[in-house]
């Protein structure tokens, strides 16, 4: 192996590392968006992600990881504003239903049934959403 080949090899490894790292960072950054887009998880009226079908252990772990973070944010905001955690969570769900559930993605309203958002129609909101 001459010097040039070594250099090229090093460059290839370097690029692969950067691209791979960016990929991991991206996946971490938009975990909830990807879960919604996959159709395996959807937004619930209680402000948490839910699993639409039967969960694999891996999927369950991903959804739980997101929900644990959500719960911490809800708890924090509830304490700051003197509201109940459930109220903060439900308000967030209103907003997520409005802005984050794309056409064809799943949501679960107050009746507990999973539904798929129609293309071209917004997600129907629970009555208490402002």
């Amino acid at each position: 192996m001459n010097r040039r080949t070594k250099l090229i090899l090093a460059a290839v490894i370097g690029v692969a590392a950067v691209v791979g790292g960016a990929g991991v960072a991206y996946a971490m950054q938009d975990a909830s968006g990807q879960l919604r887009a996959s159709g395996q998880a959807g937004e619930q009226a209680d402000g948490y992600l839910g699993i639409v079908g039967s969960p694999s252990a891996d999927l369950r772990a991903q959804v739980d990881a997101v929900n644990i973070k959500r719960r911490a944010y809800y708890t924090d905001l509830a304490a700051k504003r003197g509201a109940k955690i459930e109220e903060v969570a439900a308000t967030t769900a209103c907003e997520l239903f409005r802005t984050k559930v794309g056409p064809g993605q799943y949501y679960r309203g107050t009746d507990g049934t999973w539904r798929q958002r129609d293309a071209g129609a917004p997600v129907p909101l629970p009555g208490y959403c402002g």
Partner: protein
Amino acid sequence: MTPAILTRLRRDATRGAMGLARCLLAAPVAALLAGCVQVSAPEKPIEINLNINIRQEVVVRLQQDVKNLIENNPGVF
């Protein structure tokens, strides 16, 4: 002999009452500690529960905060 036994019984009763008082005092402290710990993480996967009453005025009051929360944490929401 009888008075001695009576005294001892009464002393036991007093000690019992003190134990109870100590226990009652400890309860709020424990509750306080539990309240502090709770902030960290949920114990269980969360199941849908909307049997609670959501007050619309609270939803309206929280709306801007919630919008900011979602905007600032794109991976979580």
